[in-house]
């Protein structure tokens, strides 16, 4: 059990800046995110897209913003728990016990939910009852490639994951069938060329302008039905299916924590961005209040205000004093500049 002044759910820009606001008040934080990297939507959805409305930064990108925020919070040596999703929040006296899907537990007076639109989850193929195959031979990632040894593997998708694994698994699998909904691939040209060469050698079969329509089998997928744009249906006999349809955002377990929800977002008061539960805060895109704007800059402001309340809850015996970074020696010590 990790004890900390605050747990931040979500490592997007707003979660990262909350680390800063807590840090200058002398509060520690642990950050949990379901993605394998820090940055949230900024990194996952638009790392290269220009952002023009961050105060005093006429132009930045999702990636440069994330890098700068990480630089800004460096003095606080924050621990990130990536590839983990918070599953449960339970009350313990005045504190909260936070449990992730990896059974990592935290005890903290403050939980700051900065989860954007929710957590990123693999997008599933648009097929009924697809869930039951997830236990057996439908995968959204490769955890152990040896599993596919000597198998006929059907891979769906046209991006880097789909093409990289087509090339890699062709070395050990019996056969790879790559299915994509159009002729163009998004993946790096080099990998596409490699796959096309493997196609010539007969190691890989590539079917384009096809989409999945059904998976057949009792417990595991035995046959995959795919449909061409012109209506033709093909039946593929397979041992495993790998689907790379990207990620989508889902509110997920947050909806089960007993917090007041409104249109997939959490209701907060604008004094300290607390939800209906004491010590649980929501900031950034996931919070909702009259006049709410889903802007990164609004999330920064929300983080600053919520940090004041976190201080009062984490250090009930200390008096909160408002200080500027320009003049406070305490803050400057925490930042390591004095």
């Amino acid at each position, binding site marked *: 059990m990790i004890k900390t002044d605050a747990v931040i759910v979500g490592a997007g820009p707003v979660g990262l800046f909350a680390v800063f606001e807590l840090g200058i008040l002398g509060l520690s934080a642990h950050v949990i995110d379901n993605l394998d990297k820090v940055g949230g939507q900024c990194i996952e959805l638009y790392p290269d897209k220009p952002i023009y409305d961050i105060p005093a930064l006429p132009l930045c990108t999702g990636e440069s913003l994330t890098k700068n925020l990480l630089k800004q919070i460096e003095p606080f040596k924050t621990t990130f728990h990536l590839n983990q999703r918070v599953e449960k929040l339970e009350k313990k006296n005045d504190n909260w016990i936070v449990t992730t899907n990896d059974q990592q537990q935290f005890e903290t007076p403050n939980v700051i939910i900065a989860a954007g639109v929710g957590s990123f989850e693999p*997008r599933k193929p648009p097929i009924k009852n697809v869930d039951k195959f997830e236990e057996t031979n439908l995968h959204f990632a490769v955890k152990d490639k040896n599993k596919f040894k000597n198998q006929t593997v059907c891979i769906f998708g046209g991006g880097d994951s789909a093409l990289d694994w087509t090339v890699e698994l062709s070395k050990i699998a019996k056969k790879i069938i790559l299915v994509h909904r*159009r002729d163009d691939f998004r993946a790096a040209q080099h990998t596409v060329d490699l796959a096309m060469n493997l196609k010539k050698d007969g190691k890989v079969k590539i079917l384009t302008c096809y989409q999945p329509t059904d998976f057949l089998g009792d417990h595991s997928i035995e046959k995959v039905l795919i449909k061409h744009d012109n209506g033709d249906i093909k039946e593929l006999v397979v041992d495993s299916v790998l689907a790379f349809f990207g990620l*989508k955002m889902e509110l997920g377990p947050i909806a089960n924590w007993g917090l007041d929800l409104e249109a997939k977002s959490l209701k907060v008061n604008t004094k300290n961005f607390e939800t209906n539960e004491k010590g649980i805060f929501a900031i950034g895109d996931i919070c909702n209040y009259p006049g709410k704007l889903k802007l990164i800059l609004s999330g920064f402001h929300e983080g600053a205000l919520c940090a004041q309340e976190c201080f009062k809850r984490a250090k009930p015996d200390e008096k909160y004093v408002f200080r500027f970074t320009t003049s406070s020696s305490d803050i400057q010590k925490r930042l390591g500049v004095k």
Partner: protein
Amino acid sequence: MPKVTYIEHNGKKHEIEVETGLSIMEGAIQNGVPGIDADCGGACACATCHVYVDEEWLEKLQEQSDSEKDMLDFAFETKKNSRLSCQLMLEDKHDGIIVNLPEKQG
């Protein structure tokens, strides 16, 4: 102002006059049309504003960019007339356009 007809998957119609220069996605969000999520807020980065454009209007729309084509790979049940509505900016000539909404986004 061009009038846009949004038809939900269950057949429910919403006829809405949307200001020129806004996208079909913005027209839906600002008027509370259900069925368009627009999680990324119009950055062509999430594929949750997917619509099927009525065939006869397809050619009158802006051409599809590579990034829209890439992003449509992630949309639910795409068809030939699939577009991302955040990329469809309304002009006066689009008055009367009809878009059908998919069963779900993402």
